[in-house]
Every structure is written in structure tokens, then in C-alpha cells.
């Protein structure tokens, strides 16, 4: 296509995507490692490159509250946070989804306290797993840039009307300079329609949002929400299909690499996929029939696509980036075990939790995990989880 790929910090690219999407309101509170995203947004608003209201709020709780107010009047809304910020705003995070308020969040995945850590893992996003947001995971800068647009498209779709989080690993992606191809404004304008919100707050057509529910009606309200999340699935696929047609870059809920003829697979979510794919190549050369399964869409979970990719395999090595204390192990392994329960041809699942709070997981580590995991699967040692790299 003759487009220019520039080396640019992923945070800056995301901010530029927000600019190209012609966002109306940005409300965010600074927290490592999201700071560069909001700083660059403040800069481009200050320079007049983006006509938007940049609201430097007093807390993340207020950030999400401001976003709810902004979305409620039908303005295109963006925010970004991580870890403790997500925890603080979690009350409103759930409410934003319940009230079906479209908005996009760049969630720079960072470890939850305690102990305090600014580095990357998925404990923050797993905390809000049940909130009802749509979650997309990205593996590199290009995906983060692209999916920012897809996120607005999906979120504001009248058949979806749900907030969308674009997850990117803190520091590993946010602070990395990567080669990213920018799309033209004309293409973006073609891809993103004007945001028209059905029941937006306006004196010309008053509505009441956020009425409380008695036990007699709460269950029905929740089912209405569940269907909303489930019904968003075909619209997400459509949004990705159209992006693919326009740019040549196609995204799918489950993406595989050399998995079709693999005997067993490693499963990742987020930036680990890139390193894992290189290790898959190396191990293949050594005769291992290993493949890679990457989860791109976390919520709504793509059950059919996942089963299609893995049924018939001998075992899966699932790499989690979070732990549920006193529970069954990593949240992703838990979901996958559940997705495969009693299904014919379901592979065994070996769960590794690795790279908590940004501890490096190198190619050698991946190799160890894959080969160790293979041994565990062979000896049927598949219960629970292994905390990789633990000293002691």
C-alpha cells in the first residue's frame, strides 16, 4: 500500500489514534504506566490538533464518573488507567457497563498492590472480569493503534452500546518504540461513523438513567445485560472484518500460529504471544509438534472459536499473568477448563503463572515452560498451577 511505518512509542500512537478518532472528551488521572498516553493527549489538545475537552480529574473514580456523564450525553469518550486506578474506579467501571454507556479505555495492564508494583501483569484486568465490558487484548503497537479505532466502532454500535477496554501490557507495550503504520484520516472517517446515541440525555427528549431495581425486576435487568454482551459478538467480528478490508490487517477472537497440525499448544493473551511464536518456530525445528493459540477477545469469551482451535489436541499449556489466591490457579486456565469441560477431544490443561509484576519471561523461559509442561501433561500432573521461576 506504500504507507509509511514509523518507529513510535506505543503510548504516543494510541494518543494519536484517539486524535484521529475525533474524540470529544478525555478524562483521565495519571498513573504509571499510562502517563504517556494522557500526557500526549493533553499536548495535542493544547496545540489545537484535537478539538476535545481534556479534563484532568481529581481521581480515577472521578475519571470514570466524568466519562459516564460524557457518554450519557452522547459524546465520544476516552480514558486510560492501570492497576490501582482501575481498582479505585471499579465501582463506576461496573456501572458504566450496566448503564450501557459507550466509551473506550486504554487499559495499560499493571500489577495490583500489594506489594506496590508499577510493572506489568494481568491482575488488574482480571479483577474486573465480571463487569460486563468488552475486552480486547493486544500484542504489539500496531494492534494497540488499530484496535483503538475498532474499539470506538464496536462500543458506539447501536447494537452493542458497551464500553470497550483495549488491553496492552504496561511498559512492555506502553513504553516501547515499535514500527507502526498509521492510517489516513479519510480511512478512519470512513470506518468510524458519527456517534448517534439513542437515549442520550438532552432536554428535547428527557429520559431517566440509572433507576434502581427492586428484587422483582433486577434479574430481568441482568439478563438484558447478559444478552447485550453476548449479542455484541457478531458486531465485534463485523468491525474487525471491515477494518481488515480497509487496511489488510485482520483480527480474530482467537488467533493461532502453527496450531493446525500441532499435537499440543501453548496459550497466551497479550504481548507474550510474540515471544511465544518465536519459541514455537525454534521448537518446531527441533521436532516438537507445538503450536500457539492466542486469545485476542477475552470478553465476550469466544467459546466456539476456542474449542475449534484446540479440540483434538493432546494438551494445552496455559500461561496466566494473574493468580486467584486460594483458588484454582490462573483465571485464564480456569476459563479454558470450563470451556472444555466434558467436551469430546478436550485437551488436558497445564497451568503456568509467569511474569507476575513484569518479571521477564525470556525465550529460554518459554522453552522451559513448554517442555516442562509437556512432561507434566504426560504424567497427568495437570491439577492446580505452577508459579514459574519461583525461588524457594
Amino acid at each position, binding site marked *: 500500500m506504500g504507507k509509511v511505518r514509523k518507529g513510535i512509542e506505543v503510548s504516543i500512537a494510541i494518543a494519536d489514534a484517539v486524535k484521529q478518532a475525533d474524540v470529544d472528551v478525555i478524562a483521565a488521572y495519571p498513573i504509571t504506566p499510562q502517563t504517556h498516553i494522557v500526557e500526549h493527549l493533553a499536548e495535542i489538545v493544547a496545540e489545537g490538533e484535537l478539538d476535545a475537552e481534556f479534563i484532568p480529574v481529581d481521581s480515577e473514580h472521578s475519571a470514570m464518573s466524568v466519562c459516564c456523564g460524557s457518554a450519557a450525553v452522547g459524546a465520544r469518550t476516552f480514558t486510560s488507567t492501570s492497576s490501582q486506578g482501575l481498582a479505585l474506579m471499579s465501582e463506576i467501571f461496573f456501572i458504566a457497563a*450496566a448503564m450501557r454507556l459507550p466509551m473506550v479505555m486504554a487499559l495499560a495492564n499493571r500489577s495490583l498492590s500489594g506489594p506496590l508494583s508499577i510493572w506489568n501483569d494481568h491482575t488488574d484486568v482480571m479483577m474486573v472480569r465480571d463487569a460486563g465490558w468488552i475486552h480486547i487484548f493486544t500484542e504489539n503497537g500496531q494492534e494497540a493503534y488499530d484496535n483503538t479505532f475498532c474499539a470506538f466502532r464496536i462500543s458506539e454500535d447501536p447494537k452493542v452500546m458497551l464500553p470497550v477496554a483495549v488491553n496492552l501490557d504496561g511498559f512492555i507495550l506502553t513504553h516501547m518504540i515499535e514500527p507502526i503504520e498509521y492510517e489516513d484520516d479519510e480511512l478512519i472517517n470512513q470506518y468510524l461513523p458519527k456517534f448517534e446515541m439513542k*437515549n442520550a440525555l438532552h432536554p428535547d427528549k428527557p429520559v*431517566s438513567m440509572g433507576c434502581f431495581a427492586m428484587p422483582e*425486576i433486577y434479574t*430481568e*435487568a441482568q439478563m*438484558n445485560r447478559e444478552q447485550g454482551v453476548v449479542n455484541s459478538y457478531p458486531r465485534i467480528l463485523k468491525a474487525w472484518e471491515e477494518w481488515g478490508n480497509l487496511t489488510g490487517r485482520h483480527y480474530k477472537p482467537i488467533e493461532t500460529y502453527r496450531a493446525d497440525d500441532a499435537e499440543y499448544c501453548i496459550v497466551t493473551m497479550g504481548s507474550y504471544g510474540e515471544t511465544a511464536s518465536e519459541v514455537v518456530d525454534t521448537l518446531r525445528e527441533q521436532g516438537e509438534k507445538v503450536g500457539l493459540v492466542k486469545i485476542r477477545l477475552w470478553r465476550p469469551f469466544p467459546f466456539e472459536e476456542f474449542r475449534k482451535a484446540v479440540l483434538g489436541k493432546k494438551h494445552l499449556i496455559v500461561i496466566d499473568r494473574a493468580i486467584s489466591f486460594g483458588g484454582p490457579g490462573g483465571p485464564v486456565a480456569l476459563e479454558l477448563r470450563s470451556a472444555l469441560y466434558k467436551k469430546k477431544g478436550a485437551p488436558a490443561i497445564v497451568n503456568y503463572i509467569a511474569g507476575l509484576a513484569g518479571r521477564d519471561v525470556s525465550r529460554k523461559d518459554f522453552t522451559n515452560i513448554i517442555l516442562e509442561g509437556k512432561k507434566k501433561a504426560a504424567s497427568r500432573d495437570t491439577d492446580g498451577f505452577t508459579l514459574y521461576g519461583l525461588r524457594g
Partner: protein
Amino acid sequence: MAKPMDQITWQELEIGAVVVEIGNARQYETGSWRSERPIVDKKQCIRCGVCWLFCPDMSIVRASEGHFEANLTYCKGCGICAKECPVGCIKMVSEEE
């Protein structure tokens, strides 16, 4: 006209459980809460509107003859109108009578 709360199906709820029928709370007739009701002496009423102004339930209305009286569909019988009437022409009378 909204269906009773315990008959609404999940499909009938508006997206985000938004209520688009503004002011439909009027379906709920709070008059059943009363244990006493205000009786206005039409002849003494000076049509000042003070009772209307101070009713927390907006349930004092202007009668066709010009005086003010309670809208018994909603009147909760709080007695503010009787207390505040400058000429004392409103009396609270037990519902049983």
C-alpha cells in the same frame, strides 16, 4: 403506561434500563398511604396558593370554583397544608370518618 414491576420481561426493558416514559411515577397512587385527609372550607379559602406551594407531593389542585383542594389520588395526609394555611380553613380529618 408501564407494566407492574413483577410482570416486565427482560426483553421489554430499554437498553441500559433507561426509562423513557417521563413522569410515569403518577401510576403509583400514594393516596393509599393516608390516615387522614385535608378538608378545605371553600368559603373561607382566600385562594392565596400557600397550601399549593408547600405540598411536597404536588397534590393540592385548583378546583373549578377557584379554591384549592387536595388531590386525593396522591395526598399522603401529611398535614402541612392545614398547618400552613394563613386563614386556618383546612382541617385534617381521619380517613375512618
